[in-house]
């Protein structure tokens, strides 16, 4: 008999060592998130996955699951805070979805739609962040960075290359390239690196791909992110190998 906790009134089983978000996604319950990635250690920086546990707000990606927890996620109070967080991310960078080739495949944009972010909310900072187009096959558009550090983690933990890092503090914190020149062309990054696959927004892009996927066939054109996040999560199965939460999903 697995131990369980309650999420918005539903019973969620969990394995020892799982976090609240891991157990929730595995059981087919979506909690909005941005910097969390099932293949990497929790980071806890974007705070989109914040839930209320026994009246306290905590990041569900770093909170270990415990028996008997009373977890609230799908409540207006938290969704309002999540909307504000997404609005702040949009205001902090230069996110021009209309001409961004990541549109339709962008986690931040998809979250904005899913959380019904209909207005700007905050005054845009319009930072000046020049592109790094020095590499022959890869383009870096720092304007869209949300500091999730997924590229930093992927390049370090999977690729073993340490191509990326964060520098500065507070509002001046920014993504840098670990090369003396600061240019991507002076690193050993390659198109097949894990760091090329994990950027949730349009910062790290293979060159000359652009808008080759037509509207209607992009990742979030057909189904919202809340449905697709469940597809990516490892699922809990019962003793017979069946996954109740997987029913009806492709």
């Amino acid at each position, binding site marked *: 008999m697995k131990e369980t906790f309650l999420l918005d009134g539903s019973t969620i089983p969990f394995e020892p060592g799982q976090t609240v978000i891991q157990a929730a996604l595995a059981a087919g319950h979506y909690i909005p998130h941005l910097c969390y990635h099932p293949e990497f250690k929790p980071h806890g920086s974007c705070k989109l996955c914040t839930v209320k546990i026994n009246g306290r707000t905590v990041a569900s990606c770093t909170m270990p699951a415990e028996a008997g927890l009373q977890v609230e996620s799908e409540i207006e109070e938290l969704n309002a805070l999540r909307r504000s967080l997404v609005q702040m991310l949009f205001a902090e960078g230069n996110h021009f979805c*209309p*001409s961004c*080739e990541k549109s339709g495949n962008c986690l931040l944009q998809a979250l904005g739609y899913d959380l019904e972010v209909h207005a700007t909310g905050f005054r845009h900072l319009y930072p000046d962040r*020049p*592109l790094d*187009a*020095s590499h022959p096959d890869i*383009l870096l558009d720092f304007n869209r960075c949300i500091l999730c550090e997924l590229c930093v983690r992927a390049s370090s933990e999977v690729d073993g290359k340490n191509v990326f890092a964060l520098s500065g503090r507070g509002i001046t914190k920014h993504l840098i390239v670990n090369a003396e020149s600061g240019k991507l062309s002076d690193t050993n990054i390659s198109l097949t690196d894990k760091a090329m696959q994990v950027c949730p927004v349009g910062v790290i892009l293979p*060159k*000359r*791909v*652009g*808008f*080759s*996927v*037509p*509207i*209607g*066939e992009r990742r979030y054109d057909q189904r919202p992110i809340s449905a697709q996040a469940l597809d990516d999560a490892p699922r809990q199965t019962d003793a017979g190998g069946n996954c109740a939460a997987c029913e009806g999903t492709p």
Partner: protein
Amino acid sequence: MGNDLETAAHPEKLRRVAIDPVSRVEGHGKVTLLLDEDDRVHQVRLHIVEFRGFEKFIQGRPYWEAPVMVQRLCGICPVSHHLAASKAMDMIVGATLTPTAEKIRRLMHYGQILQSHALHFFHLCSPDLLFGFDSEMAKRNIVGIAATYPEIARQGVLLRKFGQEVIRITAGKRIHGTGSIPGGVNKNVSIEERDYLLKDIEQVVAWSRESVGIARQLFEQNLDLYNNFGRFKAHTLNMVRGDGALDLYHGGLRARDMDGKTLFDHYDYSHYWDVIFEDVKTWSYMKFPFLRSLGPETGWYRVGPLSRVTQCDFIPTLQAEQARVEFLAFNGGSATGATLGFHWARMIEMLHAAEVIQDLLHDPDLQGNDLVSKGERQERGVGVIEAPRGTLIHHYKVDENDQIVRCNLIVSTTHNNQAMNEAIRQVARQYIDGRKLTEGLLNHIEVAIRAFDPCLSCATHALGKMPLEVELLDVEGDRVDVLTRSSDGSFCS
């Protein structure tokens, strides 16, 4: 071709009347008239009061982003910018388009011509044309048309809708799609999508033919007015196919002077700057292009449907060609030089667009899967297309890192800048000079501007030290102070 009403000798002694904003056009502009105490006109100018800046902020962006980014110049004919930029990027990637890619782009473009021409004629201009230029103002709009001429309004709406559906199927969205990419397109047209469009195309062709009839009727019923309203002689510029046929997607440049003498023909547009240059004037954000061989004073010209339909050798679809021949022959050819002849020519082009769409929908290449090609990478790309409003030029320079370092756009309405100014000066001479001003009289000025179907938001590209005027008004709206920056950057108050 005198510019005698461009600048008054003593403006300080004159009364200023402004039409601000010019309505039922795309974008924001105003007209100012300076009149003396006897209501004689001394100065007439069309001012474009928007500032855009696309040529500047596209710098540094990757070249494959341009066709999607620059189309945001406009919400009415974004496909034109989408395709002109794509054609420039085809040169950058060294591509020769596959038959499928070229035909899908053509389908997208003629869908755009259809919807834009329908929008302009039915939604924006039919109130003037059907009710009269100085008819009751409250009724002079598309709602008034829908109430009085419901069938005409319905056909206008449905013609535009069909064009928008062609764009949606080829570009992914009705407005601001992504279908055209450097070297080709990102999707074909499926059998289901083709059949969806085919079921309405015969009706669309029939309605377009009837629309040509409406334009002709307007001339027949008001011959003097339509022949002479804002009439002036102008040089022309347009693109034609290799055999001289009307081709709105690709071809060479043809320029003729006002007497019909050919200045250049089938000119390779990738060197357009050898034949066209742009002048800047202190009182407008819009540049003033001119034909180099004739110089800035007299080298201005007219682009758009009237130039295209009168200057091509033939139209390569049956019904539109017949309509063109009738247009040229009407009343000894008088409509071909009339400002209001634009409307008739525009409807002939709409019929042509409907016929081209019909032909393309029966072409099996639309279902092909060979969508993109590329060749030897180039540094410079020029794309030219005949947009609904006229010749559209996109020119980019891209560095070795794939970033755009230079961009120049000469937009259809910019080509027509001086011609529009000449038209409104002519109308001012004909209808306003020496008469007491009324709203209906001032609308005559707007009717002349609307005939060109200007897109003022697309057309404002002058950069640098803009002439600006800031007015401080009191609570009654009276001017307390004014600060003016001239084109040389100096301020005066």
